[in-house]
């Protein structure tokens, strides 16, 4: 009799755990993702479940800690510098859902970095013309100046004209080179780099040969709950104190 009771109790316990887990997952899905960081319990629940998902799906590129790799152009997810959006959970979730240049029709794919040392810098936009080697060097000097680093003044002035003129750089990176997170154009006026170490050589590679990083879309390969958990986990690694002081 005791054996039977233990068996029933264990079954009930397992069922209760599953039910509670399912309830928490449903609550998580029905909540406004941007309001979740303020809900400590939900956030902790999601982060606990999101971590293994991150390790299984994202760590292969972003690294186990999420700090990325500038040698490969993999963004750092642990800082506050967001290439797409402003770092809100809903924006992170959207990137995970639909990806970046993932060929999903809803992916962020409005812009690529043209290859200005190729005859056709951006095959999708015939208006963008190549630059000469000297012009590329001038743009690099302009960017150096924008970052407050030593630069050749004459070349930087010519580079500024190109940046705002027929180079067309301003169209994505904005006139002050501070970028545009609505289309994933990086800020070129700060010390944070996506590709390389910020040296002239690294800048030359980006301008001359172009960039177009890809992040896959997970919407058809992962459940909505796991994508939300993943999004909140990514949010948590860039906001280490999130949910600690709130209810």
């Amino acid at each position, binding site marked *: *009799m*005791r*054996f*039977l009771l233990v068996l*029933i109790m264990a*079954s009930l316990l397992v*069922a209760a755990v599953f039910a509670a887990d399912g309830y928490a*997952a*449903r609550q998580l*899905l*029905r909540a*406004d*993702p*941007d*309001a979740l960081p303020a809900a400590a319990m939900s956030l902790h629940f999601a982060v606990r479940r999101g971590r293994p998902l991150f390790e299984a799906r994202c760590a*292969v*590129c972003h690294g186990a800690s999420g700090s990325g790799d500038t*040698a*490969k*152009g993999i963004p750092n997810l642990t800082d506050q510098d967001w290439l797409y959006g402003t770092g*809100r959970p*809903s924006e992170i*979730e*959207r990137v995970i*859902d639909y*990806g970046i240049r*993932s*060929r*999903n*029709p*809803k992916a962020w794919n409005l812009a690529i970095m043209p290859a200005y*040392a*190729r*005859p056709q810098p951006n095959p999708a936009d015939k208006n963008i013309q*190549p630059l*000469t*080697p*000297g012009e590329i060097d001038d743009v690099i000097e302009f960017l150096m100046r924008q970052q407050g680093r030593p630069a050749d003044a004459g070349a930087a002035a010519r580079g500024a004209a190109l940046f705002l003129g027929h180079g067309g750089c301003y169209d994505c990176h904005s006139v002050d080179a501070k970028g545009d997170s609505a289309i994933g154009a990086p800020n070129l006026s700060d010390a944070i780099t996506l*590709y390389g170490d910020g040296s002239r050589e690294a800048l030359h*590679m980006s301008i*001359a*040969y172009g*960039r*177009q*990083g*890809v992040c*896959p*879309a*997970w*919407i*058809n*390969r992962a*459940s*909505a*709950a796991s*994508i939300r958990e993943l999004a909140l986990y990514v949010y948590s690694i860039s906001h280490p104190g999130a949910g600690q002081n709130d209810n």
Partner: protein
Amino acid sequence: MFIQFHILVRVKMTIDQEPEAAWRDPSRISSARSFVLMAAGVLIGLVFAGYSLFTARSASTLIVPAEDVALVNQQPISRADYLALLQTLYGVDLSHATQEQRRKVLDDMIREELFVQRGKELDVASTDPEVRSALVNAVELEIAENAITSQPGEAALRQFFETHKDRYVSEGVMRVIDLLNGRDSGKTKGEEFYFAAKIHLGDELFAAARSLGDGEVSKPIQLPDGIHVLEMEQNKRPVPFDFAAARAQVLGDYRNEAVDKLKLSGESFLRKRANVLIADDLR
């Protein structure tokens, strides 16, 4: 027959003799325990079956799954899409959206879904070229999306790089003066990439210029417009990239190749399973 009878007698004897002891002792047969366990199993099974029945994606259900905001003829409208549209249309998140904004977005999405479903019923794809084109594009994108999800390992990328090394070279740069009948023709404009110099000089002169080293002068080249002599001031020939420098391009090319392969195999699969009949005169 004899064995069955023997078991029945043994069971009856066990139950009759010590029913309480048999219930508690798992090594002994107890019909009461069997009945209770069976009932518990049935109950648990029913609970799981009921849960699965009402929450499964493909099942007809009255419950809207947590990841969706509505079901239109059992077709879900995703919560993610709803939030994205709310953000796009009104620039607000869910908690800051008014009831009216929420309702408007939901109504729009339901309307769209109803019309899409009606479009399927009417089979508009068979008549509307735009729908056909959109469908073809969507299927191609779906194939490509699958290829992009798998992340190739470094070894695969390196192998791809080694196989296609000729693709990963820098663009050559030259500064050359083209003298036509002894005067600068003005065709070249200072330091230029090879592709630009080729456009400006033409194929024949570019081929001659490309072979010149720094400071070298070409032999006279007779062309319809006169005699050309090339003075090469500086010729930086294309330099092969190492793997680290080329990696981003290698990854892009690797993925594009994988997408092309998948598209081909997808089309091949569709052709294999299709029943295509071609008119006699076009065979």
